Structure formats: structure tokens, C-alpha cells
């Protein structure tokens, strides 16, 4: 056995490592940035347990976990997004929540107990935030869903194709800002497509 290192985990390496700095796009009215080192947890309810799981999540996080589709409730460091029938995606910044890494996974497992499955997806998703007054136009170039304020607003989410890639879209505020969760392996292709759509607003 090798000697054990004193310090804990190595730093997480984002799939967008090659992109320097925080903001990928930083125009006057348009910004694309990566939200690094988030905890992303998928919770799936066992048969007839979706209400129980939702209640457990709500209680544990202090955020109402919606059972109806397309809703994402949040506080300043954690989002609870509907992620399909009987499934939710919990996206949290441990840093903002002053939590130890892995602590949320453990506490959710305990809260959900045998009513559902709690699956760590933290490293499987790349999280991006697209914001600014042109953000909706950039999204319209890449997704077919209706993002007009009448149809989609803050606190709403959708599982859809963005730039031909599967994504969880969450509207954060009406600036507008959108959080986009995509598969880690596709992160660079995804950013390429979004960047391309942004160029006309440079």
C-alpha cells in the first residue's frame, strides 16, 4: 500500500478545462459561464412513492419539491428541478451552502431512505449559465421549445434538445438567465454550438 496523502480529494477537473477563465462569453448583454464543481443528484421514486420522496426532499432541503412537470424551485444555493415522471434533479453548490462535498448525497440518501434511489450525477453533467437580454434569442437558435415569457419563466424547467443535444433547461430569472445541464462528454460540442449562436451579439 502506498502512503496516504494528508489532504483529501484532488481538485475536480471540468470537461471545459480548455476554456480559460470563468466566462466563456462575456459580451455587454450576453454572458455564458460554467458553473463549476456543483453537486448534481438525481432522485428517482420507487413505485407509488413519488409524493413521499417529494416530501422528503422538500423537508431535507427546505425547498418545495414539485410533483408536477416543468417546475424548478430553488433557494440561493440549491435547485430542485423536475426531471421526468417520478424523478428530480437536485443541483447544489456545496461551496455556497458551506457543505462538505458528498454531504448532500448522504443526507438525501438518509431522507429518501427506501422510498427511492439517490444517484450521484455530479461528474456526469456540465452546468452552464446563459444570461443577458439576448439569451432568449440565443436559445431560440438552438431549441424548439417556446421560451416566450408567456410560456416559460423563472422557476420553470424543461428536458429538451438544445443544439441537438439532450439538456435540462432551467430559467433562473427574467434577465433572462438559463441554466443548462448537459452530458459531460458533450460539453465542448455544446459550448461550441452556443458560442456560435452568440457571435452576432458580440
Amino acid at each position: 500500500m502506498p502512503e496516504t496523502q494528508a489532504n483529501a480529494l484532488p481538485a475536480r477537473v471540468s470537461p471545459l478545462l480548455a476554456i480559460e477563465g470563468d466566462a466563456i462569453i462575456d459580451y455587454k448583454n450576453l454572458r455564458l459561464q460554467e458553473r463549476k464543481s456543483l453537486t448534481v443528484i438525481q432522485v428517482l421514486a420507487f413505485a407509488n412513492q413519488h409524493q413521499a420522496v417529494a416530501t422528503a426532499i422538500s423537508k431535507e432541503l427546505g425547498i418545495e419539491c414539485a410533483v408536477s412537470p416543468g417546475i424548478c424551485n430553488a433557494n440561493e444555493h440549491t435547485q430542485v428541478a423536475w426531471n421526468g415522471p417520478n424523478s428530480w434533479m437536485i443541483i447544489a453548490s456545496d461551496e455556497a451552502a458551506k457543505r462538505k462535498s458528498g454531504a448532500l448525497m448522504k443526507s438525501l440518501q438518509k431522507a429518501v431512505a427506501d422510498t427511492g434511489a439517490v444517484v450521484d450525477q455530479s461528474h456526469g453533467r456540465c452546468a452552464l449559465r446563459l444570461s443577458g437580454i439576448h439569451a432568449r434569442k440565443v436559445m431560440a437558435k438552438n431549441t424548439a421549445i417556446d421560451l416566450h415569457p408567456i410560456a416559460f419563466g423563472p422557476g420553470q424547467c424543461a428536458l429538451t434538445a438544445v443544439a441537438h443535444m439532450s439538456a435540462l433547461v432551467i430559467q433562473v430569472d427574467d434577465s433572462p438567465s438559463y441554466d443548462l445541464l448537459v452530458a459531460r462528454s458533450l460539453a465542448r460540442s455544446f459550448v461550441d454550438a452556443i458560442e456560435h449562436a452568440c457571435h452576432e451579439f458580440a
Partner: protein
Amino acid sequence: MSQKFRCDEGGAIDRRKPLSFTFDGKTYQGYEGDTLASALLANGVHLLGRSFKYHRPRGIMCAGSEEPNAMVELRTGARKEPNTRATTIELFDGLVANSQNRWPSLRFDVMAVNNLFSPLLSAGFYYKTFMWPVSFWTNVYEHIIRRAAGLGTAATEADPDFYEQCHEHCDVLVVGAGPAGLMAAISAANYGARVIIADEHAQLGGSLINENFNVDGISGKDWAARQAQKLAGMNNVHILNRTTIFGYYDHNTIGAIEKVSDHVPQPAAGKPRQRMWTLYPKRVVIAAGATERPLIFGNNDKPGVMLASAVRTYINRWGVKPGSRAIVATNNSDAYRTAIDLHQAGVRVVAVVDSRMHPDAPLAAKLDALSIELIAGKTIGAAEGGQHLRYVQLVSTQGLTADPQRIDCDLVASSSGWNPNVHLHSQSGAKPIYDETIASFVPGQSRQAEVSIGAAKGSFELQDCLDQGRAAGAEAAKLSGFKGRLIKTASASDDDAYSIEALWIAPTPYNKSYKQFIDQQNDVKASDIDLAAREGYDSVELLKRYTTQGMATDQGKTSNVNALAILAAQRGEPIPEVGTTTFRPPYVPVAMGNFAGHTVGYQFMPVRRTAIHDWNEKQGAVFIEAGMWLRARYYPQSPEDTLYDCYVRETNATRSNVAMVDVSTLGKIDIQGPDVAEFLNRLYINNWLKLPIGRARYGIMLREDGVVFDDGTTTRLGENHYFMTTTTANAAPVLAHMEYYHQTAWPELDVVFCSVTEQWTGIAVAGPNSRKLLENVIDIDLSNEAFPFMAYGECKMNNISARLFRISFSGELAYEVNVAADYGEQAWLELLEAGREMGVSPYGTEALGTMRIEKGHVAGSELDGRTTALDLGLEGMANRSKHFIGKHNSQRPALIGDGRLQVVGIKSVEAGRNLRIGAHLVDDKVKLESVSQSQGHITAITFSPSLGCGIALGLLQDGASRHGEQIDAVSPLHDEKIRVEICHPIFIDPKGELVRA
């Protein structure tokens, strides 16, 4: 200032902004607001091109996107765009255009000789004239025909501009911003509906700009500008100008092209050339207007013969006089306006020739007041002139055989009536119907949420258009769930009633034979239609294909109804009996770039990269595409290293020492719940009920039809927690397969599952020294007793949490380490470091493939969607006492009978000769040229470093019982025949002792 034919005032052009452009190398001036066509006409240029087949001189016939003739090559170099209609090109400073389909010059074109040979070039000539000898078709005739006929030439360089796509939803889409469309949009928007209004022009207004109308006491042009301004100020309205709606698809989905940068020399930074919109309106109001039909007479294709409405448009929209001595020829009341507008613009109108015996009296009075001669009961029989119209011969429409009357002129404005633009209505699935009163097709019963209004519905009077727009906009908003109040009416002051008496084709002077063109872009003449009908091609669809009528880039916008009427006359039947052709998208030609959008070049398809991708790249690994993934195929150590050198080295390293491969691309599915064991037991053919915690098992899944679907391992992580791996290719299909059965067949099973492919980086460490390597970094006991073959355990690799599986694809002692992906590269580096002194190296998919062939592991090329477990030698795994997907269908007689292709090993018996993938396995009596007697084929080949010879896997009829037999592997494509020996597919360690060592 050389624009001799420009009026001093009027038109929607800006005379303070002159623009300079060149056509065929000569420089001209135009104004902002011009099209290329209007600017050329202002300069007296009428000859724009040569026709498709006969190379006849052609000019400008129309003023919009329906133009069949005036096609040019726009721009030069990489931005060159052939077959662009001069009538739709917005003029910009420095524009360069050239005529096409002529050599050596437009005025003197050698191929015009085709005109003399025209009797040989009748309808369907290429089916008849060039029949013999057969071999000449591809080698000789086709080349000649393609050279002679044709349009412009495409740019050979890559398009330097980009295209993009955009989506938008709305309540009401209004197609066209003429009087009806403007009213509809304002009306709907006033109800609060989300409105999109699209128009192909830069300026909204349509016919209000083309014509000399008055609305609400002001000029139509000004009224339109006011409405446009009103719309621009409403935040629930999106104006898409320079946008053509080209397609109406299912579920009210609409395709549109916005010409973002076609009116400037090159796109501004970040702007696309064109943008394709996919629109999702709840309701569609089609106010797309109507297209005028030309009269059909001899030489009606002469430059100088134009549509009556086009002549008005050139005068009113662009302040251009298309000629100096004009004849207006018509069969309806509408063209009288042309005479009046020409007169007001100062063009001498020699006469209005009305084919009807009794023209409308008020119109006759209007002409009389202007001292314009009206000739009733006559029409133009033929036009004459060289490269431009010089005179026309008038003939009687009443069967009188008097000598034709010659009238000198340089402009004919002709009208044979109007076709409502029913294209989108028809594309939406509806059937247009024939309306006798306007001698044209009008929209029929709607099939989708659309309505046609105004001229697009066959209402040609301005007041009707305004009223219908007002009502239709409100109705569409109401149907979309809005409540509100109707906007005020708008009133048109100067509108004449529309009347028509159809005249489909003019008699010719002295009954002589003339070329009477129907489809000018494809050079289809009235005589071609007669000939086709005589030869039996007398249904519309056959006629179209035989004569190519309506099959040019203009899709017969000005010609289809004329052709149909002539066919109907031939058949002696009324037009509705003969039918109409179906309109198909796109309404106008659409550049292919629009459909690709930004997904060209390296963005053609998204790429999936593993966490170790960057390291691989730095090592100079050569990648291979596996679905969307990029995987390291092999690692050259020097520039001279070949694929062969690398995979042999990497295989040897694995078999003799230890090596590592990135297997992150395998599908990974997390499965949890009380019923997982039973769920797996039904998905896989083998037993799953008694898999202990901390153990993995290999499994085979079948499709419902009994054919093998996928293979992989599933590991039991906890009491109700399992972890499945799939092949890279089937990661998504297996998940979908599980979802499907869980949701439809076994909802009672309490399981949940999700893909965790992305969460984990997988690294296989393989080789006799793999245990030794891992013992340097892993904190659990890896002895054979504590961690045997197919064991699983959670561990720490230095500080990184890892999942460790003792599974092997190479056939060697091997482990698979999974770590959370953000630590993937770190884990890879730590493993390399742990094995540095032992000389560990990475291996790619090529060595991986070599080793799996040596071990006889089946993979994608054997799991080809046709093979059963029995064919693959895996039937022994199946537990037939339980139920599983595909169990019964796998026992169908044809799947278990003799003659099945079964997996075999194959060895070359000819030293030094390598096997060929795809080669057929045939009896030695069969000749190389004939492989119809194929008994199977080679599915995967490699050079086996361990055996020192070429080996392969293949599928061979009854192969399992033919080990030891010799047979030929032939590849006729390579003219190759190799003697091979059939053997057991497992070449190395058949008892599997190494993996358990």
C-alpha cells in the same frame, strides 16, 4: 446619370442614394430600393440570359419571385450564387452579376443553334432521340445534353458565410404583408395575440407599393408605411421582412427563410447569410397574394414581353419605364390599370388589346379619357423581333381570318388572369378547387389551422382584401383564445371590379407554327403539351414528367395553370376534371446551407469526449469514431509507427506485462429497487436471482424476436442496487429497451434506473502484472481469494473513491476501475505512475479488438441483428426454465434449424497472407467471380501477435460443427482468394485460466 428609363419621380427608391453595380462586366447605376432587375431596366438592359434548352434570348417577365427567365450568377468567387432571380435581388453598391448559359457571350451564343434543331428537341426528346446505341447514353449523349442545357455554374470553393436556424412560436402567423396581411396582423395583434408577419420584401406593403392605390384618403404606399410602423411599435408582433414562407408541414409547422445578409455585399460580423426559421403558429393566415399568368402567343418569350402587373410594379415601386411604346394585351379587366399607369409615367400606350368582345364599359371610358385606343375581340398572335421585341401581330379571337394587324412596339404587358397563391394551402394537405368565375384555382377545405384571404383566396378587389384581413386576423386571434374588439375598417377609394373571360392560347397569324412558350424556364411549348397528350401522357402528373412542365426552379408559378388548361382543351374536358398538380415545398428555391445551419465542418455532429481525451491527445493518440465518441485507437511512439506496429506492441504489452485502456464509453446504467433481480432475470437470458452482493456477471439480452441484442456485465452493488454495463453502441438503445418493457410490460416491477455513463470514467488495467500495479495504489486486498474473478469492491485509489471490478475483455488477468469523471484524468495518471517502474503503457481500441478476437468474444460485427445466442455459441448461458425476452421467438424453426450462420474462428493457411474483413466463405469449387454460393463471411480480422498469424472471426453455415475444415475466403472486390481453416473461435486460453489467475 444614364438611367434613361427612370421616371423623374415616384417609386419606393431613394434617388439620393445611387448605387453602382456591374452586369456582364459593364458598370451601371441604380438606386437604393432597386432590385437588380429594376436597375437593369432603368438602364434599358432587357437581355439577361439564354433559355435552358433552345438558348433563346430572354429578358425580364415578372417583378417578383415567380420570374422564370431573368436568372443570373450573383457575386463571384466563393460567394457566387447561380440561378438567382434578378427580380428578387436587392441592389447593393458594388454588386456583380453575370448572365449564364451562354457562350461566348450573351448577345452571340453558339448554342442558340439548338433553336434551329428544335424539331429534334421535342417533349421527351431525350427518351427518343438518343436511344441508340445504348452505351452512348452515359458516355456521350448525357455529357452533350448536360453541357448544352443548363443553368448557371455553382461556386467551387466552400461557402465563406454561415447559415443558422431559429425557432419561434406564436398565436397567429400572417403570410404576406400586402393589404390583407397588414390588416390581419394588426387585427390579430389588437386582440393581444402573439403575431408573426412575414413578407419576402424588405418593405411591408405588397401590392400597395406595386400599385397606384389609395387607402383611407392617402396613397397605398403611405398607408402601408403607417401600418408597418404601427406593427413595429407593438411588442406582441414580430415582423419578419425579407422572409419567405417556403413550406407548410404537419402540425402547423412552418418553414421560412430570412435573407439576413443577401442585400449587402457580405454579412456583418456574426451575422448569417440566411436564417431558416421553424415557426409553430396556432393559426396561419395566408395572405400570400396572387400570381399573374402570361398570355400564350407565338414568340411570347421575347425580351420586352412582360406581365401586365410587373410593368405596373416597375413603374410604381421603382419608377422605371420598362419600354417606350407599349401594347397591353389582356383577357381581363385588371390589365387596364397597366395602360393607365404607363400613360401616367409618360410611356406611349399604342393600344389595349382585349380578347373579349365586350370589355367593361367603365374601363373603356377611362381609356377613352386618356385617348388610348382599345381593340376588342383581338389578341396578340405572335411577337417578332431579334433580341428584343419589335412588333406584334394581332389576330382575331372570334375566328375571323382577316390578315393579322401589325403594331410596332417595344413592350407588351400581357395578362391572362390571376392565380391565387394556393401553394401553402396545398402544402398543408388541402385540395384547391377550380373557380370558373375567375378561371383559376382557389383554396378548398382547410385541413390544418389555416385560412387564405385576399388575392390568395381569389378576391382581387382591394376593399375585399382589407375587409377579409380585418376579419381573419380577429378570427384567428379568437380561435387562439383571445378576446378583444375589431379594429376600424380601412376603405379603398379606387378599385375596379374584376372580370375575366379565359383565353388560354392565342390563334397564330395565318395558322403558322410558332413557338408558344408555357414554361419559359424549362422551354416547354404549347406544342410539347399537345404532343405529350397525343402520345398518351395526358394525365397531369405524367405530362409534368414527360415535358418537364413546372419542374424548373420556379416550379411553374406562371405556367402550371396555362399548361393544365391547354391539356384540358386537348382532352376535350373541363379543367376541374383534369385536375391540378400538388404543390410541394419549397415555394422558392432554398439554399441547402439553411438546412445544415451551423452544423458544418467540425460542428457537423456533436462529439463525445472522455475525461482522458486531453491526455490521449497530448500523447499523439490516433482517434477513431465510435458513434459520437472519439476513442483512442492506437498510440504511435514515433512518426514511423504504423497502426500495425502499435497494436502489436500494445497487445504484447498487455499479454506479457500490464497495460491500460480507457473504457469510459461503455454504457452504464444504475438500477435500484426491490425487484431488480427479477427485472434482470427477464431482460437477460441467464440467471440473475442469486447474484451475491459484490459480484458481477456477464449477461446476454435478446430482442423480442429472439435475436441477440446486446451483452455486458451487471454487478450487484448492494441489496437492491445494481450496475449494468452495455456496449458503447447500445448504451441508449438498452436504456430505451428497459424503459419500454418496464413501462408497458412489467409496470408491477418496482425498479428505477438511469444512465450513469457520464458520471464514471472507466479504466481497464489488464495483463499478468495488473494486480501488482493496482496493489501500488488501491487500499483493498486484491489476492485471488479476497478478490476473485468477477468480484466487485469499493476502494480508494490514493484519495479518490473508486469502484473496482475484476472483469476481463482481453482474456488476461484484468480489473476495471471506475472513478467519478472529474477525477478521471487524475486516476489515469496515478495508475500510470503506479505502473511506471513496471513499464505500464496505454492501449487503444485496435489492440482491444485484437485481443477480443483472439479470445473469441463476440462484439458488434457478430451481434449484427441477425444472430441468435445459438449462432454465437452462447446458448449454454440461457436458462430455459425461466421467462426472458425473446425466449420463445428464439426457438422458431428457422432460427434453430440447419444452415444457420454460426460464429467460427478462421486461420489463414497460406503463410504471410492476411485475411480480409467482409470476405465471403465459399466452397473451393466456386470461382472467384461468383460468390452467389457464399456460405458465410468474415466479420473481424486481425494479426494475432500471440499466434504470429492472421486470424479472424466469421459467420459460417453450420460453422460450429465444421472446425478443422478448409475453405476459401474470397473478396471479388480485391480479386483475392485465400485458403483458410475453420477453427474454434477462442484462439487463446480456451479454458479461461488466465483471467482467474
